[in-house]
C-alpha cells in the first residue's frame, strides 16, 4: 500500500528562512529524522523493525525501542527519487514476475543493492518483520520473501477482513489475543525490552491528539475554497501519523502547527498551496479513490492544479487509518483499540463500505465527482473499482472518471493518456454544470 511520506512538501520551494514552526519544515525534519535513526541504529546497538502502513502498530513498536522502517514508504521514496525503476527490474531479473505488485519489487530490488536506503544513508536489514496482515494479501508474500532471503524473524498479526462491513467482537478478540500471546512476546524477545502497558497508554494519548488535529486538517477541505488538496497535499500531511511518528510528541506538535496554519488559511479564504504557489481559483472539487503515482508525482499533480482542480478528499489519505468517522486510539483500552485500528483501515473495508464512504464524501465535501486512479500493482485497491465507479455515479448522479497508472513503476505512467482523460473529465463536469444551470 501505497504509503504516504514524501519528504518535504509543496512548500519546500520556500526560501530557507522558513520558520521553525512551519508545518512543512517540521514534516521534512521528522521524516529525515527517522531515516537518520535507522542509519544510526546498528552503531547504537538498536534493533530495527519493519512493518506495513495499514495497521502499523507504531505505538507498540516504540514500547520496545525499535528503530522503525516502513517498506512501502521506502518504495515510494525511491519512486519519487526515480530509483525504483532500476530496483524493479533488478527484482524481475532475480525471478519476480512482471505481473506482481511493484512495491514489493522496488523493496526487494533495493535490498539486493545492499543496506542503503532511499536517502543514500544506511538502511539496516530489519531484525524483526511485524507482518500486520491488514487489508492486503500481498503483505504476507512480501515479508515471506524477505524472510526467505534474509532470514529475518517474522511475526504474523492476522487481521480479519470486514467482509460484512463491520467489526465483530470475535474479530477484535482474535487480534487482541495474537497481540498478547504472539506479537508482544516476540517483540520482547527480539528487543530485550520488557513490555510496559503504561508506556503504550502514554503513546496512545499522544496519538489521540494528533488524530484529532489531522481530522480537522483533512475536513477543512469542506470549506470553499478548500484550503488544502486532500490528495496531493494530504500525502504530506499523513506522512508522520501513518508511519514512525504516531504516538510521539513531535507528531502531536506537527499536527497542532499544521492545523493552526490551515485554519488561518480558512480564515483568509485561501486555496491550497501547490508546488507553483497558491491556487488562484478553485474550479473543480474532486474526490479521488486509489493511491497516487509516485514516479511522476509532480507532473501528475500539475495536471490538476493547472486546470484549477482540487481534490477535496481521497480514500488514500485513509490507508493508514480511517479517523474521520470517529475512531481514535484509546489509552483506556489499549490493545482492543490497536485491534480496532487495524481492523478499520480503508483497504480492510468491504466494497459496499468503500462505496458508502465515497458517496458520503461527495456529499459532505460538495464534490463535482469521483476520479479513480487505478493502480496496476494493487489488487487490494483496484479489483472492483469499476463497480465502485458505476455505483457512485448511480447513487450520487455525479460524473466519475477512471485513469490507470502505477505506484513506482515508471513504465506504467503515460502522461499523455492521463492528461487527455483528465481534460475530458473536467470538460464533462463543466457541461454537467451548465446543463444543470439551464
Amino acid at each position, binding site marked *: 500500500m501505497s504509503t504516504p511520506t514524501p519528504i518535504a512538501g509543496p512548500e519546500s520551494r520556500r526560501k530557507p528562512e522558513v520558520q521553525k514552526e512551519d508545518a512543512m519544515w517540521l514534516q521534512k525534519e521528522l521524516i529525515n529524522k527517522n531515516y537518520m535513526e535507522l542509519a544510526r541504529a546498528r552503531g547504537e546497538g538498536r534493533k530495527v523493525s519493519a512493518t506495513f502502513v495499514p495497521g502499523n502498530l507504531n505505538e507498540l513498536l516504540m514500547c520496545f525501542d525499535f528503530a522503525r522502517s516502513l517498506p512501502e514508504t521506502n518504495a515510494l521514496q525511491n519512486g519519487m527519487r526515480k530509483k525504483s525503476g532500476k530496483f524493479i527490474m533488478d527484482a524481475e531479473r*532475480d*525471478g*519476480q*514476475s512482471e*505481473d*506482481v*505488485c511493484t512495491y*514489493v519489487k522496488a523493496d526487494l530490488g533495493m535490498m539486493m543493492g545492499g543496506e542503503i536506503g532511499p536517502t543514500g544513508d544506511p538502511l539496516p536489514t530489519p531484525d524483526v518483520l511485524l*507482518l500486520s*496482515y491488514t487489508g*492486503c*494479501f*500481498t503483505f*504476507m*508474500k*512480501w515479508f*515471506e*520473501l524477505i*524472510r*526467505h532471503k534474509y*532470514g529475518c524473524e*517474522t511475526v*504474523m498479526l*492476522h487481521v*480479519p*477482513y470486514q*467482509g*460484512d462491513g463491520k467489526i465483530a467482537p*470475535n*474479530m477484535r*478478540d*482474535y487480534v487482541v*489475543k*495474537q497481540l498478547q*500471546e*504472539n506479537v508482544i512476546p516476540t517483540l520482547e524477545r527480539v528487543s530485550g525490552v520488557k513490555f510496559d502497558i503504561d508506556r503504550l497508554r502514554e503513546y496512545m494519548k499522544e496519538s489521540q491528539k494528533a488524530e484529532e488535529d489531522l481530522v480537522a486538517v483533512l475536513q477543512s477541505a469542506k470549506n470553499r475554497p478548500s484550503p488544502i488538496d486532500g490528495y496531493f497535499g494530504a500525502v504530506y500531511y499523513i506522512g508522520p501519523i501513518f508511519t514512525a511518528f504516531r504516538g510521539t510528541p513531535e507528531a502531536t506538535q506537527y499536527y497542532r502547527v499544521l492545523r493552526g496554519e490551515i485554519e488561518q488559511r480558512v480564515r483568509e479564504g485561501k486555496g491550497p498551496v501547490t508546488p507553483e504557489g497558491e491556487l488562484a481559483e478553485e474550479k473543480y472539487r474532486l474526490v479521488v479513490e486509489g493511491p497516487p503515482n509516485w514516479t511522476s508525482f509532480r507532473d501528475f499533480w500539475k495536471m490538476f492544479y493547472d486546470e484549477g482542480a482540487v481534490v477535496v478528499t481521497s480514500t488514500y489519505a485513509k490507508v493508514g487509518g480511517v479517523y474521520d468517522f470517529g475512531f481514535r486510539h484509546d489509552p483506556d483500552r489499549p490493545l482492543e483499540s490497536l485491534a480496532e485500528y487495524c481492523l478499520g483501515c480503508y483497504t480492510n473495508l*468491504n*466494497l*459496499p*463500505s*468503500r*462505496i458508502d464512504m465515497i458517496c458520503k464524501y461527495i456529499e459532505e465535501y460538495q464534490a463535482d465527482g469521483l476520479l479513480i486512479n*487505478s493502480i*496496476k500493482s494493487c*489488487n*487490494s485497491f*483496484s*479489483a*472492483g*473499482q*469499476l*463497480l465502485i465507479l458505476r*455505483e457512485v455515479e448511480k447513487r450520487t448522479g455525479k460524473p466519475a472518471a477512471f485513469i*490507470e497508472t502505477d505506484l513506482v513503476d515508471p513504465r506504467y505512467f503515460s502522461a499523455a493518456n492521463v492528461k487527455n482523460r483528465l481534460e475530458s473529465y473536467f470538460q464533462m463536469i463543466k457541461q454537467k454544470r451548465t446543463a444543470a444551470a439551464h
Partner: protein
Amino acid sequence: MSVKAIVDRCEALFEDLNFQAVKDWKAAAPGRKAIGYMPVYVPREIIHAAGMLPVGILGGGDQLEVIQGDAYYQSYICRIPRSTIELGLTGRLDCLDGMLFPSICDVIRNLSGMWQILFKDKYVRYFDVPQEYRDAVGGAYYVHELEILRDDLGRLRGRPVTDDELRAAIGVYNENRRAIRDLYAFRARTPWLAPTAEVYLVLRAGMVLPVDEHTRLVRDYIAAASAADRPRRDNARVVVTGVFCEQPPLGLIKSIEMAGCYIVDDDFMLVTRWLLEDVPETGNPLEELSRAFLHHSASTSAKYDARREDKGKFLLEQVRTRGAEGVVFAAPSFCDPALLERPMLQDVLAKHGIPYTAFKYAENTGQMAPIREQAGTFADSIKLWSAA
C-alpha cells in the same frame, strides 16, 4: 462402467456452464438449496449438513464468451473474477442460493463485496480462515467463523444445523477424501493408466455432484482405469503447482501430458484434499474441523508459513512421496499469490537439486504450442539428466 463412459459423463458436467446437474438435484426434492464456493477452501461439510449442495465455481473456462465481465475489470487483473461475474450476470448461477468467497487473495475478497451489490437477493459470505495456528487463538476465531456459517445456513433452510448432521457430513467427506487420496496414489503409481486430463475431470465432477455420488464415481473410475489396457510411456514424472485458483484450459493439461510429462501430483481443486487426514466423526464437529484445518491441512500460497523452514515443505513432500522428477510451475497471469510464491518455491527446489520449469496461462489461453514445446523440452532434459 468403462473409463470412457465415466470420463464422458464428467466431461459433460465440466462443459455444462448452465449447471444443469445442480438444477436437477434441486428439482428432485422440494426446498433444496445449493451454495456456490470459490477456491481455495471452504468446509463443505457444513453446507452438506444443512442439506444443501456445495457447488465449486471455478470461472468460465475457455468456452465462455466474456462480454459483461470485462467491463468490471482492468486488463491487469486475472480472468477468473470476470468470467465468474459473467456467469452470474447471464443468469447461469441463478440456481445457487448463496455464494462463499474464501480468503485466498484480494481479488476474490473484493469480489465478495461486488457480489453483495450485484446479487442482492442471494446469501453472500466472505469466508475467512485463520493465519495463526494455535487452537486457543486462530482456532477460537475459526470455530466462531464456522458457527456463523452454520447459523446462516440453518436460517436459510429454516432449521438449525445439528451436531449430528455435522458429524454425518464429516463422515461422508472423509469417505470422499479417502477415495481421492486413493485416486492420487493410483495415478502416481501408474500414471499411464490415469492421465491427468481424466483425473482432473473426475475431480471437477465433484464440484457439482453430491458428495456420496462423487465418491462412488471416483471409486468407479479407479476400478475401471486399473483394468484398462494402456501403454506405459517413458515420460518424465512431474508435479504441477500454481493451478489452485483460475483453471488452465483442459487442452493445456493435455498438452503437458502429450509433451512427455506424467503429472503425478498437483494443486488442482485443493478443496478436495485440503484436510490431509480423516476428521474425527465424534466429538464437537466444528472444533474437529478447526483442528483439522490448523494442524493437518495442505499448503498453498494463501496460507501463511509460520516458519521460514516450512516454505516449500509441502511441495517437496509432493515430489518425494510421488517420486516426481521435476516441477512445472503453472500460474495464472496476474495472480499475485501464485507468482509471488513461485520464487521462494523455486529456491527451495534449487537447493534440493529438483529441476523445474515455469509458465503463465489464462483460463482462455488458446495457443498451446509454446507450452507444449516448453513442457517437451523440460521432459527431455529430465530424462537426459536421469540418464547421465
